[in-house]
C-alpha cells in the first residue's frame, strides 16, 4: 500500500506550464506596448497623424513630453523584463531598470510642476503640458517595473499592485474615449491623457503585472488556501473601485470639486488594493505553513506505518542460528538494539555443507533499516563464502566487491570443526573475541582492518582449539568497547576477567555477557556464544 501526500511548495505555486504561458503573454504585451510607443513617437516627429480628425481613434495627437516618456517607459519594461534574447545580457536589464526609474522621476516632476502651476518649466508655453494623469502613470509604472522585476517577493507584490492600479485608472480613461466621451477620462484637472497614452499604459501595466507570475499576486490568486479564495472573491471588485467611483463622480457631480472626489476614490482604491494584497498573502503564507506542517506530519506517520513492519521483520532476520545437528555444541545469541530500533549488527551461526559450523558477526556503521539490510547482506555473503569452502580470511578478502563508498563494517568470520574443536577465525577490525577455557579467558585480537576500508587488503586467520567445556564469545562494540574502562581495565579485558572459570551452558554465558553491558545502550549489542560441551 502506498500513500502520496501532496504538500504546497514554498509558494502557493503556479502550474509551471501556466506560468510559462503567462510569462510569454507578458513578453508579447510588453513588446506590443513598445512597438505602439515607437509608432506614437514617430507620429510626433512626422506629423502624419496630425491629419487624423480628433475623436475616439487609436492614434491621435500626443504631446511630445508624454509621448517621449511613455516610449521610454515601454522600452524600459521590455528591457527590464525577461525577453529571452536579452536574458544573457544583464546590462540590458540594468539599462531597463535605470530608464524606468528616470521615467518615474519624470512623472514626479510633472506632478509637482502641475500642482505648483509651473507649466512654464517644461516644454515652454507653446506646447500643452502633459496631463497630471500622465505624471501619475509614469510615476506608478516607472516604480512598478524595477519592483516587479525583482527577485524579492514583497517587492514583486508591491510592483504588481502598482501596475494593477495603473491598469485600473488608465483602463477607465481608455473606455471613456472608446465610448466617445473623453471627459470620463478627465482625471483631476485638464488636460486629459490621450487615447494612445492610455492604451500604452494599459499594455505596459499588463506586461509588468506578468513579470514573475510564480511569486506575485497570481501565485496567491491561484492558491487553494484561504488567501487565494479571498483574492479571487474580492480582488476584482476592489480593482474596480477607482473606476466605479470615477464614473459615479463624473456622472453625478455633486460639487465643483468633482476631481477631489475622484482623487479620494483613487486613493481609496489604492489603499484597498494594497491592503487586500498584503492580507491575502499573509493569510496564504499561514495556510501554506499549516498545510506543509500537516503534510510533513502525515508523511512521517505513513513512513512509520510503512517502516514499522519492515523494522520488526528485520529484527527477526538479523540474528539467525541453524545448528540443530551439531552434537556436543551449544549456541546462544543475544541481541539488544540501540536507540530503540535496529542498527547495523547482524549475526549468523549455521551448519555448513561440510559439517563444520560457520559463525559470522557483522557490524555496519550507522543506525536504521538501511544499515541493517546491508549487515544482513554482508553476513549472508560471508556465510555463503565459507559454505563454498573459502577460508574465513579469504571470505573477508573477497567480500570487498560488495563495498559501497559510504559504508564501513567490522566483522568476524569463524569456522569450527565440531569433531575436533579446531577453529579458524578472521576478524576485520572487530572488537576482540574471548576464548574461555578451563583455566583462562583470553582475548583474541583482530587480524585485519575494517571491511571496505582498503580493497587490496588480504586478511589473515588465527587458529584456535576449543577443548571440551571451552567457549568462544563474540560480541559487538556496544557490549564492550576497547575505549571504555571498567575496574581499571578496558571493557573487553574486564569482561574476559569476569568469564574466567565460567563453565555454564552457552545461554547462561550469553546472559552473563549481556548483563555486563549497558542496559540502555546507544549502540546495538550482539553476543554470540559457541560452547563445546564437556
Amino acid at each position, binding site marked *: 500500500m502506498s500513500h502520496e501526500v501532496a504538500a504546497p511548495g514554498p509558494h502557493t505555486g503556479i502550474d509551471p506550464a501556466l506560468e510559462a504561458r503567462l510569462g510569454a503573454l507578458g513578453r508579447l504585451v510588453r513588446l506590443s506596448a513598445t512597438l505602439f510607443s515607437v509608432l506614437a513617437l514617430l507620429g510626433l516627429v512626422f506629423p502624419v497623424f496630425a491629419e487624423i480628425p480628433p475623436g475616439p481613434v487609436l492614434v491621435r495627437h500626443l504631446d511630445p513630453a508624454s509621448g517621449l516618456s511613455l516610449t521610454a517607459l515601454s522600452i524600459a519594461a521590455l528591457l527590464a523584463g525577461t525577453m529571452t534574447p536579452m536574458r544573457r545580457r544583464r546590462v540590458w536589464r540594468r539599462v531597463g531598470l535605470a530608464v524606468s526609474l528616470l521615467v518615474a522621476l519624470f512623472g514626479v516632476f510633472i506632478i509637482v510642476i502641475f500642482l505648483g502651476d509651473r507649466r512654464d518649466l517644461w516644454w515652454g508655453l507653446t506646447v500643452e503640458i502633459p496631463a497630471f494623469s500622465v505624471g501619475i502613470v509614469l510615476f506608478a509604472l516607472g516604480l512598478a517595473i524595477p519592483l516587479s522585476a525583482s527577485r524579492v517577493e514583497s517587492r514583486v507584490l508591491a510592483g504588481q499592485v502598482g501596475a494593477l492600479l495603473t491598469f485600473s485608472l488608465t483602463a477607465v480613461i481608455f473606455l471613456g474615449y472608446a465610448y466617445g466621451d473623453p471627459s470620463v477620462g478627465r482625471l483631476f484637472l485638464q488636460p486629459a491623457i490621450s487615447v494612445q497614452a492610455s492604451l500604452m499604459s494599459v499594455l505596459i501595466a499588463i506586461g509588468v503585472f506578468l513579470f514573475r507570475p510564480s511569486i506575485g499576486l497570481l501565485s496567491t490568486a491561484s492558491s487553494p488556501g484561504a488567501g487565494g479564495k479571498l483574492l479571487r472573491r474580492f480582488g476584482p471588485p476592489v480593482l474596480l473601485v477607482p473606476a466605479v467611483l470615477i464614473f459615479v463622480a463624473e456622472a453625478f457631480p455633486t460639487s465643483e470639486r468633482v476631481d477631489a472626489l475622484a482623487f479620494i476614490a483613487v486613493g481609496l482604491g489604492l489603499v484597498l488594493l494594497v491592503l487586500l494584497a498584503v492580507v491575502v498573502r499573509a493569510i496564504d503564507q499561514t495556510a501554506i505553513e499549516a498545510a506543509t506542517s500537516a503534510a510533513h506530519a502525515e508523511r512521517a506517520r505513513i513512513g512509520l506505518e510503512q517502516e514499522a513492519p519492515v523494522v520488526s521483520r528485520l529484527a527477526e532476520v538479523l540474528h539467525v542460528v541453524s545448528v540443530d545437528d551439531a552434537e556436543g555444541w551449544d549456541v546462544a545469541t543475544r541481541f539488544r538494539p540501540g*536507540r530503540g530500533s535496529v542498527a547495523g549488527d547482524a549475526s549468523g551461526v549455521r551448519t555448513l555443507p561440510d559439517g563444520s559450523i560457520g559463525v559470522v558477526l557483522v*557490524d555496519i*556503521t*550507522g*543506525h536504521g533499516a538501511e544499515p541493517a539490510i546491508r549487515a544482513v547482506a554482508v553476513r549472508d555473503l560471508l556465510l555463503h563464502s565459507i559454505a563454498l569452502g573459502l577460508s574465513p580470511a579469504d571470505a573477508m578478502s573477497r567480500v570487498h566487491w560488495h563495498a559501497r*563508498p*559510504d559504508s*564501513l563494517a*567490522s566483522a568476524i568470520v569463524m569456522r569450527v570443526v565440531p569433531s575436533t574443536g579446531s577453529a579458524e577465525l578472521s576478524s*576485520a*577490525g572487530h*572488537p*576482540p573475541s574471548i576464548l574461555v577455557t578451563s583455566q583462562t579467558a583470553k582475548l583474541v*585480537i*583482530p587480524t*585485519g*582492518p*575494517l571491511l571496505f*576500508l*582498503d580493497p587490496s587488503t588480504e586478511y589473515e586467520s588465527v587458529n584456535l582449539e576449543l577443548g571440551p567445556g571451552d567457549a568462544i564469545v563474540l560480541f559487538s*562494540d556496544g557490549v564492550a*568497547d*576497547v*575505549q*571504555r*574502562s571498567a575496574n581499571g581495565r*578496558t571493557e573487553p579485558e574486564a569482561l574476559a576477567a569476569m568469564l574466567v572459570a565460567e563453565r555454564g551452558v552457552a545461554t547462561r554465558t550469553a546472559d552473563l555477557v549481556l548483563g555486563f553491558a549497558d542496559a540502555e545502550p*546507544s*549502540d546495538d549489542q550482539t553476543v554470540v556464544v559457541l560452547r563445546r560441551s564437556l
Partner: protein
Amino acid sequence: MVSGITIERSKLTEEWIAIAVTGEIDLATVGDLDTAMDQVLADGDQSLVVDLNGSSFMDSTGLKALIMADRRFGGAGRGFAVAVGSGPISRLIDLSGVRGSLRVVDSADDVM
C-alpha cells in the same frame, strides 16, 4: 539539541588547519564533526588535522566520518591527518586497523 562536543578551529601554518575536538564523538555528535571538517574543505585549499587528544571516546560512526573525510581531502589533493596520542581512541584506531589507512600523528604539531 545541545551538542556533546566542542570543536575549536585554528590555523597551524599556511598549509595546515587544525580542529581540536573535545567530548565524546558518537551518533549524536558526529554531525558536528562532519560539518566542521566540510567547512575546512569548502573554505580553501588547506590541509586538515583533526586533533582528538581532548576526546575520550569515539564510536564507529566517528571513525567512519574520519575515513570519509580523509577520502574527500585526498580526492581534492589535500592532506588529512588525525592527531591522537596514547589513549582510548588510539586503541580503537589500532584494533580497527585504520592506522594503515589514515595518517595518524601524536599531536597536531607533528603534521608539520
